[in-house]
Structure formats: C-alpha cells, structure tokens
C-alpha cells in the first residue's frame, strides 16, 4: 500500500484486501460485490477466492475459513497480490489462519463480537490476540460488527439467525466507506437478488448502509483511502472469471462457426461452473449434457462431433485421466473436439479446491499409442475467452481433439475484461463435405485434415472407428506400412499447426541474460515479477506459452537468444521437461507446489538469484 499524499483522503496506487470468515459468513459474496464495484469505479483488479473443500464446515473452525482476496490499482496489475494490506477477519479463526500472510504493519479489521472464549478455543488461541499484544505492529481496528448489525436491523422482520447472517453486508459497507467506493451497485444487486423477499432486502440494505455510516460517523478511522481509476484502453469492460470467460468463449465459437454447441460433462471442482454457465444459454441452442461420468461426457461429445456439432467436454485432472482412452478415439477418428481441463491440486483427489499446473504432461503425452493432440493454455481469466475460440478453431480446421488447460486460480479469479464486439471476433469457417465426387473419409486437405462428412449427408455414408485406418480410404487396415504412415501423418498434422499460431512473444529485450519462461495461469505473477526486477535494474525478459503442443515456430530461436532460462511452474518442472527434450537447452527450474498461485516476491528473488546477484551484466 503505497501512500501518495498525506491527507484525510489518502490516495493509493494499489491495495490488496482479504475478506475472511466462516464458510457461512458470505465472504465469497462480499468479495465479489467489492470486486464488481471496484471494477465499475475503473480500477484494474485481480481476485483470488479461496474456500475450503468442505461445503459448510462447522462455524468457528480454522479449516472452515473461507477467504476472498482482491487486488486493485490505478495501474495495470496482473495478480491478486502476494500479501494483503488489509485483512477483514470476521472471527478468531479467520484471523489465525490469515495473519501470517498479512503485510507487516498491515491493517486488521476484526469483528470483535466474535472474540469470545468459544471462538477463541475453536481457533486454538490460548489467549485473546486482541488483548495479549500479539498484534502489536499492525493497525488493528476492533469493530463489534455483529452487535452493530443487530442494532441496525432492529424492527426488521428477520430471525436472529438471519440478522446474524447480514453482518457481511455491514463489513462490506464499512470497506466501501474506507476505500471510498459507492454502495449503489450493491444496493441494486440486493434488490434484484432478493426480489421475492422484502425482509431480506430491507435487512441487508440496512446492514450495508449501517456499515458505511459507521465509518463516516465514528472516530475509529482517521483516514479514508482512494485508488484512482486505472488508465485502461478505451472500451466497454466487465469483470470476468476464467470459467465464465471459457463458457462465453465456446458460446462465441458456436456463433462464429455456425455450429450448435454440445457440451458433454460431469461436474467436478473447479470446472463445474463451465457447464453451469453454458446450461443457461439454451436459447442459443446450446446443449449441455450432464453425463453419468467423465467417460460418457467425452464419448457423447465425440458422438456429437461425428454428427456435426461443435463438441466440447470440460473437467479437471481426475476427469482428464478418465477421458484419456476416449481422447485416443478422437485422435484415430480425427474428429474435432475440445477437452477443457481446469487443473487442480493432485495427484488423485489431491486438493480439489486449489490450483496447480501439474496436468501438463498428462495433456501432452498421457495416452496409449502415439496419439498427438494440440495443447493450449490460457494465461489469465479473460484469456480463457480467446483460448476457447482458438481451441475450437484449431479443432475444426485440423479435425483433431484439442486440450485446453486452465487452472483453479484463473478459473475462479477475475479481472476486468475489455469486451470484444462479435464482429471483431475471428470467423471459424466450417466446411462440411457434401460432394460425393472424390470423397474418401481419410483423404486429406492442405492442412492434412480429413473431410467432415456428417450423418444426414446423402451418399457419403461411411464408417469410422478406433482401429487403424487405411490412408485415404479409411477402411480398417492391419497393413504394417500403412500403420507407420498413419502414425507419422497424424504426428505431422499436429506439428504443422505451428504454422498457424502466433509466434512466441518476448516482453522486454528480445535477447540477453535471462528469460523467464512460463505457461498458462502464472502469466500475471511472472509479469509482475519481471516488471519489478526490471524496475530494480535487472536485465530480464519474459516469454509465455499459450500454445504448448506444438510450440510456436520461433521458440528455439527465442530460447537461444538468452544465456539463462528460468521456468517457474506450479509443478515439479513439467514444461521444463518438454523444453529440454524438444530443444536440448538447459533451464533453471523454480517449482512451488502449494496449491496457490506463485508469489511475485518469490519469483523476483529467484530472478535475482539466477542472475547471480548482479543485475544481468
């Protein structure tokens, strides 16, 4: 929190706030509302929801703490912030769990009502931290949020339980006051959300206003803060999460290709929202099929692709594992299909609600036989929109399954998105084969793609399947030389896609001492770290993969332009493995597998370490 001027309304460049409380305390809602309002105010922002695997863990426990962190700024930002400046802790457990990550000297706002013996015990506090001096060095604000909310709601026809639940709106109102944001958007939201429940409207709105007024009226806070709008490019914006962007991207791909969208999927955290969003677009003819399992999710999609739909399937790591056999079928039948894997902590069930990047090798080579598949990875929440369209385009143009990797962090996190107009989006041309003359199911075009001749097309009746196909004719073939040829052709078809994707871009000098190389959802953290290191005078550039199989054509050239290459990943070095085997260049790895986004400061440290302490000269 860097202060610019020293007056009653303090201007800040950026702030990171974390809301934390019981799963039942509505912290996700509070965080989302604050984000929405902050977006409307024009700040750049980035969010990190963090909730327990339990649905509603018992109140007051540490493992039941749910958090929502958001980082907003008057400048471009790329991460939810390493460490919060401000912690709003609704109970002792929330304080206990989150204090270690709060910035030194940061601000703590606690619901002091909740610091009773029972809650202190549940949080395993031996004495009250508000009293025992353990918070010395922080700016602590004790606000009796529960009782103030109860007072404010006196007379409203709500049960004591419902009144208690309104306290998050009090906290939200207080934070709106403190950071000088308007409350009307949230007021409006309350009215819409609870349209059928006038008491809820009354209660929540009163709590919100009470929180705001509390800041205004009391002497507790001597200063307010403001963060100026960011200078974003001109346009219309909305705040968007990765999962929503993914859903919209496929909706757009459906519209731009003219193909009905078919999603076969089985719910799994953190991918379920994709089917949930898409299921609301029935009036676009979108078909969302909640299958009996992941295998049915993908095989129904394969059937739909055969019959001419834009077919996709969404899942997370364990589901991708289950889909591997069927992906091979799509490879052999050369049908367009997009498989979305929202990566989460593994192995096995692992850490279902946490983020990770450890499915990369599974995506690139986790199939029986030689089964090459293009692999794409979105870099930020809004980039999911672009990559969904790209994945669809490649799948259709090359008649191939495509794997699109996102991760729990960008899927749930959000950022402002400059909304594109439909006519600015790339077209996705589709040519179904209809002419009988010269039709063979495995005759290839200039992209080595076979024709898409869908059932219903007269005189093109043909049969496909998972057995090896004869070249051109597509009949079952056990011929040894044909097999070698087809294995090679399939590999070549995918490799050729390198001619049809953007080159790897270097941010910073295009050659030099150190390149920090990443892929997927670590884009923001690496970018911020590289920027910081450069600001400190270190010579370092960044390049980031959104296309991993095949790699962009200029990858080797980029790699060879730097003396050192540092690859930070939230896994044990999976991209590093691919880079080493493909380009035989040595790389430095930085691997932190904590179920959380990489910390900017850690990457900066690593950059400095890699440069040997001197600034790259």
């Amino acid at each position, binding site marked *: 929190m860097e202060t610019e001027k020293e007056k009653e309304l303090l201007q800040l460049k950026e702030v990171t706030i974390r809301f934390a409380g019981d799963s039942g305390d509505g912290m996700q809602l509070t965080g989302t509302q604050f984000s929405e309002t902050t*977006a*409307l105010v*024009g700040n750049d922002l980035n969010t990190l929801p963090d909730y327990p695997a339990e649905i509603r863990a018992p109140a007051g426990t540490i493992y039941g703490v749910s958090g929502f962190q958001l980082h907003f700024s008057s400048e471009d930002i790329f991460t939810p912030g390493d460490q919060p400046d401000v912690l709003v802790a609704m109970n002792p457990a929330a304080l206990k769990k989150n204090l270690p990550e709060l910035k030194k000297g940061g601000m703590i706002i606690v619901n002091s009502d909740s610091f009773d013996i029972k809650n202190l015990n549940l949080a395993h506090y031996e004495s009250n931290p508000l009293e025992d001096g353990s918070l010395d060095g922080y700016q602590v604000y004790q606000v009796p949020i529960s009782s103030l909310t109860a007072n404010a709601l006196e007379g409203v026809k709500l049960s004591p339980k419902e009144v208690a639940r309104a306290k998050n709106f009090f906290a939200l109102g207080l934070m709106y006051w403190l950071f000088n944001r308007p409350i009307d*958007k949230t007021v409006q939201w309350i009215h819409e959300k609870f349209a059928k429940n006038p008491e809820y409207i009354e209660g929540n709105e009163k709590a919100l206003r009470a929180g705001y007024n509390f800041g205004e009226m009391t002497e507790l806070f001597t200063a307010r803060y403001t963060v100026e709008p960011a200078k*974003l*490019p*001109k*346009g*219309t*914006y*909305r*705040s968007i999460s990765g999962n929503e962007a993914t859903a919209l991207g496929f*909706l*757009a791909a459906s*519209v731009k290709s003219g193909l009905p969208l*078919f999603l076969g999927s089985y719910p799994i955290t953190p991918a379920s929202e994709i089917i949930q969003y898409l299921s609301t*677009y*029935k*009036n*676009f*003819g*979108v*078909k969302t*099929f909640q*299958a*009996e399992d992941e*295998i*049915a999710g993908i*095989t*129904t*999609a*394969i*059937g*739909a692709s*055969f*019959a*001419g*739909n834009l*077919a996709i399937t969404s899942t997370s790591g364990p589901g991708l594992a289950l889909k591997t*056999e*069927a992906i*091979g*079928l799509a490879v052999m039948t050369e049908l367009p299909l997009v498989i979305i894997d929202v990566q989460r902590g593994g192995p096995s069930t692992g850490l279902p609600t946490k983020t990770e990047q450890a499915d990369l090798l599974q995506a690139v080579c986790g199939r029986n036989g030689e089964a090459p598949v293009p692999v794409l990875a979105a870099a930020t929440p809004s980039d999911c929109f672009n990559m969904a369209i790209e994945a669809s385009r490649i799948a259709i143009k090359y008649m191939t399954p495509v794997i699109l990797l996102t991760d729990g962090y960008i899927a749930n996190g959000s950022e402002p998105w*400059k*909304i594109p*107009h*439909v006519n600015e989006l790339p077209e996705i041309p589709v040519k179904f084969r209809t002419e009988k003359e010269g039709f063979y199911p495995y005759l290839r075009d200039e992209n080595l793609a076979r024709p898409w001749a869908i*059932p*219903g097309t*007269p005189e*093109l*009746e*043909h*049969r*496909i*399947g*998972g*057995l090896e196909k004869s070249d051109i004719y597509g*009949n*079952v073939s056990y011929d040894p030389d044909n097999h070698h040829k087809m294995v090679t052709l399939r590999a070549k078809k995918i490799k050729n896609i390198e001619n049809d994707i953007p080159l790897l871009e270097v941010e910073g000098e295009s050659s030099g001492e150190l390149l920090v190389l990443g892929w997927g959802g670590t884009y923001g953290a690496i970018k911020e770290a590289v920027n910081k290191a450069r600001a400190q005078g270190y010579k370092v550039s960044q390049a980031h993969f959104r296309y991993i199989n095949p790699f962009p054509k200029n990858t080797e050239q980029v790699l060879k332009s730097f003396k050192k290459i540092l690859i930070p990943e939230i896994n044990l070095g999976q991209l590093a493995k691919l880079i080493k085997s493909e380009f035989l260049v040595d790389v430095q790895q930085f691997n932190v597998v904590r179920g959380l986004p990489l910390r900017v400061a850690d990457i900066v440290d690593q950059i400095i370490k890699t440069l040997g302490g001197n600034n790259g000269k």
Partner: protein
Amino acid sequence: MANNVEVKEIKYTAKDFASDQEVRWCPGCGDYSILAQVQRTFPEIIDRPKEKIVWVSGIGCSSRFPYYMNTYGFHGIHGRAPAIATGVKLANPELSVWVASGDGDLLSIGGNHFIHACRKNIDLKILMFNNRIYGLTKGQYSPTSEKGKITKTTPYGSVDYPFNPPMLALGAEASFIARSIDRHPKHLQEMIRRAGLHKGTAFIEIFQNCNIFNDGAFALLTEKDTKDDHVLELVHGQPMIFGKNKDKGIKLDGLTPMVVDLTSGKYSKDDLWVHDEFDPNPARTAILAMFDETPGFPTPIGIFRQIIKETYDEGLFRQIEEVKKKKGEGDLEKILFSGNVWEVN
C-alpha cells in the same frame, strides 16, 4: 413402407443396406443372421432416407456390425456405444440411431452407459448380441455366462451369477424390452421392426450362437426337437401357450406363475395369463424375466414391455424451444455486454 415425407418416396431393398466391406465373422456365427434380418427389415421400417441412419457400436465381434451396414457408422471403444450414440442423437435428433453391442460390451464395461441411457429414455435402438461369452478376445466368460461355466478365465467354473438382461433393463426402467434369437429370423425381424417404431430406448436381447467359443449355448431354444418346449413366444393379447403341441400354458397364481398342462382337462386357455406388452406394471416383466432362472419354465421371447413417455431428446429440444420463446433467440453481442459493464474513455 419406406416413406419419407421430407424428400421424396424412397424404396430401399435389403441390398441397399449392405456395405462394400467383406463380412469377417467366423463361418457359422450367429451374427450373420442378425445382420441379414436387419438388412431385410430396414426397407420396411426406415421412415427416412438412409443417410439419416447411424449405427454405433463398441468393441467385440458383434461390434463390427456397423462396417457391414451401408449407413453412417461408428465403431467406438469398448463399452461406450450407448454414450457415443447418445451424442449422435442429441446432436441431430433427425437421425435414427442404432446400437450394436455384445453381452460384454454392453453389460460388462458398458453397463453404466446402458442403464443411464435406459433411465434417460434416449431414443436409441439397442441390439445386444448375447452369446454369453467374450468372442473377440477368444473365450473368457461374460456377465451373462451361467454360474459354474468353464471358460478360459474360469478353468474351474465361474462363481458369479449372470445378469438377467431384461431384468436389468427393467431395473433401469427401459421403455421397451424385448428378446429374440438369431435362429428365429421371422421373430427377430418382427422385434427389429417393433424396436424401430418405438420412441425411446428400445432394448432387444438377441440370443446369438458363438460357434467357436460357446457353441450350442442356446441349442435347447433353437433345435427342432427341443425349441417348442423351451421357448414361449409372447404375443400381445394372447394367453401364454407353448409346447410342441401347444399343450402347455402359464397361469398366474397371485404373483406366482405356474406351468400348467392344457391336456389334463384341469386347465383351459381361459385360465392362462394373457400377455399385455403395454402393461406399465413392472411386475409383469419381472415375473417373465425370472422364467429363465426357474426350472421347468420356458424362455420367453418377444416384447416384454413397451411404454410411452417423453424421450430425453424430445425433452431437451422442447426445453430449447421453450427458452427461446421466453428469452428470444440468443444474441451473443447482448450476452457479452451484459452484467456489470462500464466504459473507459
């Protein structure tokens, strides 16, 4: 009558449904008859141009079926035919979608897709070639093999009980359940015809002889001497009579079926249980399905039951239309620019 309203009247013959691929089953395999009966029946039951027919299968001898039909075809992976077929049907509900599968493919690895297709009542016709063995992998026991059966993987006899396929389909509340036999071509044709006319998941269990790995599994039901005494042909509205001289019948005593002798003078046709294939009561199918497992009872073939209810595909497209009516055709620009948007100038 092949009568296609959309285009023009098309008349097909059995030959139109034969593809150019050589049929590669073992000589003598029961699959040949099933293929022949399908090709013979199709000209009569197919109500749309043949490019609108899709055959989907899994893996197994039986699953080679699509290659031999001159329609669109998809030879899938083991067990997944019902799911692939579901995708085809939902992508384009105008297609007539047929599944060819084996007892291993459909009931072992594919059991879950099968029961879920039945539950959802997806408009698929599923033909299960039941030879009570894994043919393609050369003779391991299957989930329909009799307990005690000696096969390559059960050299001392299997210790598990087989599925009773109509019973399993009933458990999943399939809307059409039937059974036939490779060696009864006329009957098989009739079942295929009826399945083709049904809307919803239609399941036909077809007893099929694998002369290589399980020869004679259904000999009692197909050999001249024995078949009349061992097969009960279910006919809607008719009392259940069987036997070489039509001398035996089935009577129902409460919930308990009995085989009665019509020649003893004690029972007449009027005492017999009359088959009603449209009876929605699952008890009927349950009782019929158990005949097989009950000594002294004949094996029923025919339509066990057939009920009409909305199919999944109908429901899905009905809903799409309803939402379109309510919200208007989707407008992407509007959706993109919806929610909390703001302008930066």
